[in-house]
């Protein structure tokens, strides 16, 4: 009997299991198949800091959430409609976030006395009232996987390991995801290990067929492709997009990319991705520490490369000294801060937007630097090229803020035409700029100084961290220092002439919701919900945080109320209040997880009502 197919507009699935269960991979493969179907999507991986936390415990749960839809969506979803829980700990950790009446699919085999105890369940939640009100499917995934692969002669442990593919197969059937995409991928991944390939393929098919043939599931679901601009798309994570954006800037400028970094969660992905791209002329150097990484990148810039260093908050603290030097040397350099929950070691794998003020002010002396922030995974590509453009054009270090959420999550991306990317002209100095002399701090119309790289005949010069005059000579003259402080500030301020104005999406109303960074998607989703209720709310999102777009004050003052949702205690609000004397309110969430559209919707409605 053919099963019924029900149409859905959007679905949120959360795959959860032990950190060793391969949930990230399961989610990733489900995402690929979903992307190719043409659904819009957004993902949120959520894993513990420990590589292998004690197996079976709530602390060791690793989860991957995907939101996919037949319409444009902007967040990974607040509450999963479906939870796939591979063990009791996953059920315990994740059940609370599942929507009321949602679907829970559990690996029944994992609900042993031992595992229940490890998860902290006194009684089996499958047998008491814990799951009342949910639609529960008890699927013996482990034993069915073992049966599906038994002919392959694998050890039981090995066989069990393929159970994530069973779960993927079942989910693929439920939502009509194409099978061949996953099988092709398995072939590519395990082509040279036929036994492993066979086991994973068999488990995947078994999961799929289980859905199709058993009476357990009455329905499967279809989610139609979302309307999208014509073009070629791919799915991309923020970490990859950022790395590729840097490579693109290197190509567009002709400057070799030199990336120096010290391993740190969650920025290491950048180092890993760029290290693979040696054939693009990318030099990567894993430095002895964060300070060295910054200095090595800066040295590379002095030598005529595109020097970039990347880190997360704790590393930013250490790099501050070098950033000050870069401000003084006035050399192009990009510093990527993939923000994570702080202070100190904080919560390394959890997201936060708490480094904005650090980026703005976290150096001694008057040391202004341009600051940019990416708003979505694919936007990391654009911001990376923009950061490089500004750095090169204005001979300045630029801080690029990403965060854990952006780095790890992914979305479909309309692959840009290379020719449409900004052209970046290194504009190296080739001759004297003052008669027969070369003055390293004589500025152009942008207040940028010339960049003469070693090896250029006749342009030898010495620069350093000490205050100096136009010639580069050390100067302790009080008025010269004040002039230089003003000049460096004016140079950064002048970049405002060269960036797009702050755009406002305004259907009318008295309230503007202003955001920056990764809260973009949540703000859009919340505003949409508010508007669907017939209320009016305007939104604007900042990419350039220093300098602000020139029309920022005008935009802010056009509204009676300004609400700034941030994953901090009000950092952007502090800046705009100080700069524009606007009574901006903060919606703050500092929990290491993104703001939910639902909670923000309520917050917006409250402000509108007040």
């Amino acid at each position: 009997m053919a099963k019924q197919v029900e149409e859905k507009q959007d679905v949120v699935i959360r795959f959860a299991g032990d950190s060793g269960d391969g949930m990230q991979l399961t989610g990733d493969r489900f995402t690929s198949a979903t992307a190719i179907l043409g659904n819009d999507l957004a993902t949120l991986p959520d894993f513990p800091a420990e590589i292998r936390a004690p197996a079976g415990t709530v602390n060791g749960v690793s989860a991957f959430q995907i939101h996919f839809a037949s319409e444009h969506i902007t967040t990974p979803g607040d509450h999963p409609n479906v939870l796939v829980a591979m063990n009791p700990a996953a059920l315990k950790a994740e059940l609370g976030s599942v929507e009321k009446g949602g679907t829970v699919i559990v690996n029944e085999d994992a609900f042993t006395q031992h595992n229940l105890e490890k998860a902290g369940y006194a009684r089996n939640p499958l047998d008491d009232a814990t799951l009342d009100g949910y639609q529960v499917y008890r699927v013996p995934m482990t034993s069915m996987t073992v049966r599906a692969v038994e002919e392959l002669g694998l050890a039981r442990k090995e066989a069990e390991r393929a159970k994530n593919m069973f779960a993927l197969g079942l989910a693929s059937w439920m939502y009509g995801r194409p099978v061949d995409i996953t099988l092709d991928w398995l072939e590519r991944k395990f082509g040279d290990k036929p036994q492993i390939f066979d086991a994973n393929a068999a488990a995947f098919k078994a999961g799929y067929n289980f859905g199709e043939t058993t009476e357990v599931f009455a329905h499967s679901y279809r989610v139609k492709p979302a309307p999208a601009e014509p073009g070629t798309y791919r799915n991309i994570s923020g970490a990859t997009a950022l790395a590729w954006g840097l490579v693109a800037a290197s190509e567009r400028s002709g400057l070799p990319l030199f990336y120096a970094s010290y391993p740190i969660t969650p920025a290491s992905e950048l180092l890993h991705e760029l290290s693979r791209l040696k054939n693009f002329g990318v030099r990567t150097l894993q430095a002895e520490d964060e300070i060295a990484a910054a200095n090595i990148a800066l040295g590379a810039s002095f030598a005529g490369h595109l020097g970039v260093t990347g880190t997360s908050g704790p590393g930013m603290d250490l790099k501050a000294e070098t950033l000050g030097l870069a401000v003084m040397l006035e050399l192009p350099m990009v510093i990527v801060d993939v923000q994570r929950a702080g202070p100190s070691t904080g919560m390394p794998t959890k997201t936060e937007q708490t480094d904005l003020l650090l980026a703005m002010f976290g150096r001694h002396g008057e040391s202004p630097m341009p600051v940019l922030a990416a708003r979505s995974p694919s936007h990391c590509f654009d911001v990376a090229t923009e950061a490089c453009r500004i750095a090169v054009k204005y001979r300045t270090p630029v801080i690029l803020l990403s965060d854990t959420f952006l780095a790890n999550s992914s979305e479909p991306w309309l692959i840009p035409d290379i020719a449409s990317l900004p052209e970046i002209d290194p504009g190296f100095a080739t001759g004297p700029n003052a008669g027969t002399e070369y003055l390293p701090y004589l500025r152009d119309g942008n207040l940028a100084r010339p960049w003469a790289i070693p090896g250029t005949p006749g342009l030898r010069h010495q620069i350093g961290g000490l205050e100096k005059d136009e010639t580069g000579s050390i100067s302790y003259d009080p008025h010269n220092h004040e002039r230089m402080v003003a000049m460096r500030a004016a140079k950064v301020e002048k970049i405002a002439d060269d960036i797009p104005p702050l755009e406002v999406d305004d259907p009318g109303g008295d309230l503007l919701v202003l955001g920056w960074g990764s809260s973009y998607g949540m703000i859009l989703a919340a505003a949409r919900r508010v508007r669907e209720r017939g209320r009016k709310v305007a939104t604007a999102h900042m990419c350039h945080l220093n300098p602000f777009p020139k029309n920022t004050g005008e935009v802010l003052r056009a509204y009676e109320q300004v609400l700034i949702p941030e994953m901090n205690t009000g950092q952007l609000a502090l800046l705009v209040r100080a700069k524009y004397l606007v009574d901006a309110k903060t919606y703050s969430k500092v929990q290491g997880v993104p703001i939910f559209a639902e909670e923000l919707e309520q917050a917006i409605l409250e402000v509108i009502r007040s």
Partner: protein
Amino acid sequence: MSDVESGHAGRTEGVGTLTKKDFTSEREVRWCPGCGDYAILATVQSFMPELGISPDDTVFVSGIGCSGRFTYYMDTYGVHGIHGRAPALATGIATARPDLNVWVVTGDGDALSIGGNHIIHALRRNVNIKILMFNNQIYGLTKGQYSPTSEEGKITKSTPFGSLDHPFNPIALALGAEATFVARSIDNDRQHLTQVLRQAAAHRGAAFVEIYQNCIVFNDGAFDLLREKAQGVHNQIRLAHGKPIIFDEGKQCISVGDNGRLVITDVESTPPERIIVHDVHGRPSLAFALAHTSPWPTEPTCIGVFREVERPVYGEAMKHQIEAATDRLGKGNLERLLHSGDTWTID
């Protein structure tokens, strides 16, 4: 272009005859009168033309401290960085541009205290940089606190009751960091310093040169035993590859003692086969033992090249890796990269 085989990077052809003047900036030199830095500067400026490398292809990088100003006095490309970080800055420069002739000037506080981590890693990577570490056993620029090379018990402003710190032995430290070239010289011995600089410049990779430098204001006389001619004759142990280590006008030598340790003995009473023949390319243990035979300049002390061995040079190795990757994978194509993996097209 660069003559990497000999360790010299930078253009030599078409440079013409260079003189000291070509490496001397017009800036007024502002160290304390009588500072050992003057002598080192003059020796370096006089030596550089000998390499025949264009000053346009030469970069001096320095950190913080009195030695940091060196950069401003050389008419080459120069960066005066921040405290302790010069080896890291220079690593970026030399790795990005193996065609440049890169020198680092640093001091004992800069290199061994705040920059300790950078110097050991630059040495183990064998970055093609020549590090001149001016050791005056004191913090001069901050006005006289003890340094990581000051002797135990040192009375300074920050240690009025005497320093409790055991000092670093810079040569032993560099050897321990797997340095491929380690040497020591003295600020006022122009001939010896020039010879050491020559060997350092010719070395492929990182060279570590400790230069005993007299701080006339805060630690005057620290190296008198070696610097003053009358005493130096007896106390300088001049190392020369392949030669027996004999000093003090032939009267004393370094020999193998009864327990296998190196000791200073009278030549007369030492069986010739026990006298150490210096070998810069040999086992690191010899160089290490020599570094410890006379650990402090308060007794007869070794100067010259302790060790010189070959190892792949970092910047070149990175260049080769990029070339090999490009050969194997083809020159990177951005369009193809962006379209790699699963894509889908909407018409």
